[in-house]
């Protein structure tokens, strides 16, 4: 076969190949490009602080900083003036941060005589080459004014209700607020929440609470109004306690106190919440220590469908385990379960246990021990 024939055959093969297989007729190509400089600060996110509690007295700013690079070092400055005097700076530093970081920057505790604060956030970002960039909030030349107050008021309307909020100025934790529903008052009513200085000696309380552990005191005025509907109240108890159990007390005169029931504690936000039915004074106490019996169920015998075993004074991190007499665990109840710390006789599988005696084991996280006992379940 000569070269000419080989060439012709090769051409034929190519033509057949092109005909058999799909082919691209037309195309367009576009180039995409993005250039990132070594430090690319994008934004600082912060909600303005407008009031600081004169009693808790700490301004603590929360800020998110978003930027582009990895492994930057960052310095966050809270630059502030108290009573318009000299500039103060609180600083938080972080290293090897990526894309987004969260800062909390706080002033020291203010003096009770202080009347105003103004502040500015300055974030300095630096990469490994030493390239530096700055972010400011509100801006490099302006400061946010803050009032030092001990109260907050709002008009609660008869038709729509309303919320009264007293902001502590500490953005790491929650605030004090009361949410009133419509119909709480017959006519529009101005409600004021005032944070009060703690008495030098906490008032006595006949319910068994320690008399020396009041951590926060508020008045909700006008005093003595019975609410037309329960209002959801949340009280911030401050930062100066490591306690984990609290009780909420109410009084008309700061002399006679009564315990508010169904109080929930939010240790993250350092608040306690409850439905309240009357204005007055509200105090948050560190709960006194509880005995083992305070956790045990009041009923020792429960009949299926008629009642349940209720384990008391338990909270996040606590648990209850139910064992049969052979030592086999049939049920575990933890915080977050829909029914709370109650046992209705069901196994973990959902079926009811047999009639008989069962052993409960309560684990209280803060006590660091187990509380056991027996109960009888009847089908």
């Amino acid at each position, binding site marked *: 076969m000569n070269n000419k024939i080989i060439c012709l055959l090769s051409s034929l093969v190519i033509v057949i190949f092109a005909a058999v297989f799909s082919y691209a007729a037309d195309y367009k190509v576009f180039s*995409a490009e993005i250039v990132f400089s070594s430090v690319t600060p994008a934004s600082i996110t912060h909600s303005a602080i407008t009031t600081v509690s004169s009693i808790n007295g700490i301004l603590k700013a929360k800020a998110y900083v978003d930027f582009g690079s990895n492994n930057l070092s960052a310095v966050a400055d809270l630059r502030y003036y108290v009573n318009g005097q000299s500039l103060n700076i609180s600083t938080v530093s972080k290293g090897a941060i990526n894309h*987004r970081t969260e800062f909390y920057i706080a002033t020291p505790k203010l003096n009770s005589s202080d009347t105003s604060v103004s502040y500015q956030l300055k974030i300095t970002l630096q990469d490994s080459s030493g390239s530096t960039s700055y972010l400011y909030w509100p801006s490099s030349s302006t400061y946010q004014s803050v009032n030092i107050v001990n109260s907050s008021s709002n008009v609660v309307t008869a038709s729509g209700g309303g919320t009264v909020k007293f902001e502590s100025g500490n953005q790491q934790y929650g605030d004090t607020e009361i949410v009133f529903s419509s119909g709480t008052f017959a006519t529009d009513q101005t409600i004021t929440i005032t944070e009060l200085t703690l008495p030098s000696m906490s008032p006595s309380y006949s319910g068994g609470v320690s008399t020396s552990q009041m951590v926060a005191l508020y008045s909700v005025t006008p005093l003595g109004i019975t609410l037309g509907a329960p209002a959801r109240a949340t009280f911030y108890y401050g930062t100066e306690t490591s306690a984990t159990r609290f009780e909420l007390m109410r009084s008309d005169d700061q002399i006679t106190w009564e315990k508010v029931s169904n109080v929930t504690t939010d240790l993250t936000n350092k608040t306690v919440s409850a439905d309240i039915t009357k204005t007055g004074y509200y105090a948050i106490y560190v709960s006194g220590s509880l005995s083992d019996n305070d956790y045990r169920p009041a009923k020792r015998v429960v009949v299926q469908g008629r009642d349940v075993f209720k384990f008391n004074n338990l909270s996040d991190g606590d648990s209850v385990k139910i064992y049969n007499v052979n030592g086999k665990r049939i049920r575990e109840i933890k915080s977050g379960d829909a029914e709370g710390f109650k046992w209705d006789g069901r196994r973990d599988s959902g079926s009811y246990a047999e009639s008989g005696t069962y052993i409960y084991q309560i684990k209280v996280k803060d006590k660091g021990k187990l509380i056991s006992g027996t109960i009888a379940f009847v089908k």
Partner: protein
Amino acid sequence: MNKKTKIILSAVVYLFMLAVVADNSFADNLADKYVYSLFNENFNGATQEAGTVYDNIKYNVWNGGGNSRPAVDIVADSTAKEGNKYYSCSISSTTNGWSGFCYTFVTGSSNVETRRDISAFSTLEFYIRPKTGDVSNIQVGVTDSADRTVSLSSLGVNNSSHTWQKCTINLTGLPSVNLINIKNTFLFITSNLTATFDLDSIVLKRSSSGSFDAALKNISDSSSTTKITWDETVLGSSWTAANQYIELSLDKFESDTWKIKIYTNNGSASKNGLVAVTDETKIIPMCWRISKNTLPNSDGDTLQIAQSGAPNYALYDKGKSATDPSYYPWFYMVDFAEHESGDYDVAWSYKGFHAAKDENYWGMMDMSKEGIYPKVYLGADFTNALGGLTYRANVKLELFNE
């Protein structure tokens, strides 16, 4: 009369004839198109529905003698040859007579019948799917001063095969036809028969090849530009749409199973995104979306890209999160080197826009004489992008005839 006068008079007569005989501006909005759609959802033209006039073309159904008028309904389902719509035709004859349907050129607000010059077009093409009865003797063609037709059997239609069969009429080959003086541009005549059949993808084609084009435009003002970009502030952000879109334009119809694919052309299956110039192991994933609309729009379509969780991690329009996100998907970009065999990298095909994940929901709604210019939007995930680097990609849109 001298020679010069004769020439002038001849020219005047010729111009007069042109003016009287035919309007050369065929299909008012689409005079320069290489593919003119009479019933095709992917090409510009006059997609016909009964009782309507599109682009000065009127859909007529008629009968004579004892025949009843044909029932010609538009059906939408996945068996369509093209897009998702086709004509379902039913002809019933009780005695001798004629019936049929045609597309007639009209003009003015009263839709007066007129004549058009279609001599720039070389073929009239369509698909037929015989179902019942015998369609062999149905006559198809055009009308000038008289009907100029050929039979389906002469076009090679196999009546016993109930599948889509392509018919191509060589317009200049129609007997005695005058293509500059056409009244009916698609004529279907039946006589003394009862049959059912489907029709789809009826188009006129010029002999020249047509074109496929893609133009890069800024979202902000639809102005033309040359590069796909994002703002530098996206660094560290999750999926974010680019500042541009690519507008597609197709006036080329060489294969009935054409596809327009989109992919990066970075030379490696793993480089399916923006690649760092100085460190090609650093990749920013990309995604794309196609829409008939300019986004965002008042219908709630946004350019915000949301991502579902495990196991699919599907991307979809965040503004449509309250509805089924499958209908508003973004697709992960693949690189050409991956040789994607499915439809994952197909933006537009004979089935329509790839505007939904389900194969049965390719978006092809509201097609008409208006221009069909789908828009491709691009996105990228900058969560793990690194400052101090430049990232680049080649994005290729390619028309395949398969």
